[in-house]
């Protein structure tokens, strides 16, 4: 009987996961084996008794690239080298566990800034040039990094010293809630799984509540995103988390049908030709029109340049650090930009209009 109830429970959990997966268009089937992870594609987390088995999956092929077993430890000291994990640690009130960051310029959270001023947190710089002895002296037991390179510098030596190193591939997730779901891993590491799951579920509810509002809209304004670097315009790929956000915010993202989570590249001629009807330009990467024109002088020929440019850059660190843990507010901002009548009373949280 107990077994029967267990199977039924598992079945319903699986069913709900699969139902959620319909919302998250490309979540992989392997997560049926890990019902706790619904949206994220690049890790799995299994709990047995009091310990966890973390599997980091390769963002390109889904193969397991690292298996890490750990037990929750609320006193664990961490070097957090990316803005997104700073955001997750802050939401779970774990700022006091941080002993190292990449640089204070990349921090938004006031508590982390205060601890840095009190010299309880030190700056480690870029991960590629990180100092081995400085890590050892910090007494950190965990390093969280972006996983841009194949391996963390001195990884073997650090692991022999008992320091766990985890690459965080949240930036390769294709759904904003998949990015947020990495908070479950952070919660599990520090013994705050319940709080993490609760926060995740609340945010998912808020996100879908907002998404529901866009079902009443009559028209979807055409939108472009990204900007030019060099002679190439980089726009979010059709499967990227930002394309998902734009879709959920009830807009017609001009490159929604392109493949992949990575940025797509366009020439300025293509951009001008394909965006003559775009009403909005999101994330030009610069906070003023003057700066935009310095890097993309041809931008003034986009019809939406006059009155439809929005960017987070006025407070870039807030976007990078909090955007991952507050995807519902990102969505709210975008809905407010595209459909102001749906959300009236609040100010934009991340974005501002570029005048």
């Amino acid at each position, binding site marked *: 009987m107990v077994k029967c109830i267990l199977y039924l429970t598992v079945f319903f959990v699986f069913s709900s996961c699969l139902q959620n997966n319909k919302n998250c268009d490309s979540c992989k089937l392997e997560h049926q084996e890990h019902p706790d992870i619904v949206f994220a594609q690049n890790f799995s987390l299994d709990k047995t008794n009091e310990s966890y088995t973390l599997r980091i999956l390769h963002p390109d092929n889904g193969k397991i690239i690292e298996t890490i077993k750990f037990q929750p430890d609320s006193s664990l000291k961490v070097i957090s080298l990316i803005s997104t994990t700073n955001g997750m640690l802050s939401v779970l009130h774990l700022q006091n566990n941080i002993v190292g960051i990449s640089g204070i310029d990349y921090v938004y959270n006031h508590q982390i800034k205060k601890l840095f001023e009190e010299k309880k947190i030190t700056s480690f*710089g870029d991960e590629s*040039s990180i100092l081995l002895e400085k890590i050892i002296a910090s007494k950190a037991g965990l390093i969280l990094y972006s996983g841009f390179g194949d391996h963390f510098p001195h990884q073997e030596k650090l692991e022999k010293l008992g320091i766990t190193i985890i690459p965080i591939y949240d930036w390769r997730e294709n759904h904003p809630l998949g990015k947020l779901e990495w908070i479950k891993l952070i919660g599990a590491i520090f013994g705050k799984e319940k709080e993490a799951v609760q926060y995740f579920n609340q945010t998912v509810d808020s996100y879908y509540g907002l998404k529901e509002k866009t079902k009443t809209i009559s028209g979807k304004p055409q939108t472009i995103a990204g900007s030019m*670097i*060099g*002679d*190439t315009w980089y726009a979010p790929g059709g499967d990227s988390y930002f394309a998902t956000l734009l879709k959920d915010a009830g807009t017609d993202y001009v490159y929604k049908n392109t493949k992949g989570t990575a940025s797509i*590249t366009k*020439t*300025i*001629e*293509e951009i*001008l*030709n394909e965006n*003559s009807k775009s009403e909005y330009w999101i994330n030009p990467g610069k906070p003023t029109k003057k700066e935009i024109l*310095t*890097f993309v*002088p*041809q931008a003034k*020929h986009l019809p939406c340049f006059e009155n439809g440019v929005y960017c987070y850059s006025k407070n870039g660190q807030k976007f990078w650090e909090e955007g991952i843990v507050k995807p519902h507010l990102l969505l709210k901002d975008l809905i407010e930009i595209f459909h102001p009548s749906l959300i009236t009373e609040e100010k934009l949280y991340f974005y501002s209009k570029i005048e």
Partner: protein
Amino acid sequence: MKYATRYILFLTLLVLLPFLAFVHLSIGQVDFSIEEFFSSFLMSGENQMKDIVLQKIRIPRMLMALLSGASLSLAGLLMQTLFRNPLAGPYVLGINSGASLFVALSIMTGIPFFTTDLSLVSGALIGAFLFGMLVLFFAKIVKNQISLLLIGLMLGSFTSAIVAFIQSVSPSEDLKIFTLWGLGSLQKVNIEQIPYIFMFIWIGITSALLIIKSLNAIVLGEQHAKLLGINVSNTRFIIILITAVLTGITTAFCGPISFVGLAVPNLTRILFKTQQHKILIPGTLLIGGIFILFCDIIIKLLENHFIIPINVLTSLIGAPMVIWLVLKRLK
């Protein structure tokens, strides 16, 4: 070389240049019919976006290709004449390094002077001209060309070290912008800026044409030039000033475009078989313009698949071409 052969060669270049300019204008991701092309050219087209693409994107890019090719090639010719060394180029004086340093400061440091009011163009322009003035100052002190060449190279090494340090402590996004600036681009220029660029380059060309006699004498060596009554010191000053203007203005608007200044004057000498600057200057200007136009046409043809920076392609095409021509001449 016979006068007639030179005449035919010039005529060929004069026909090839507008032909390539037309081909350059007609290539792109936006399709134009012949009627649309000409009506957009005259800004009387029905499709406003096509007018913008032709007038604001393609024409400035084509004109910048011509101007940058001509000015860098002429600057290279002047340097090769001054140092009597075919390996000299417009960047040996460190003018490019000055531009790079100021661009690096404006992109990758938080120094308010560089980040607030200055754009990349003005940063590069100030850097190029400051270093041009520095080289002119040294040119007044130093007596011979080799010492000046060494000072130019040392200035380059010194600024490269500072730029490398700035790069090592910069965020990846800034690093990417700087790296891409270093790869060169013909697309950052507005049509409104073209007349100003043209004016500076025209001043450089006219000045070079006015000192043809001195240039021909310097080719023979300093002593010979002095015997011919040339004021070598003044000529050297003027040559450096012209090179600073030509290189500075081009680097400021396009980023560094290497190899053109080295390859084109050599190519011109091989084709025209002369040391006479009244032939070499117009020849270099024409071949320089044609060379960059040709390179940019290839870039435009490949744009649908990948985007090659102009600085990469000029070297990829230019280096084997010069090797081939040198080997051919040796035979």
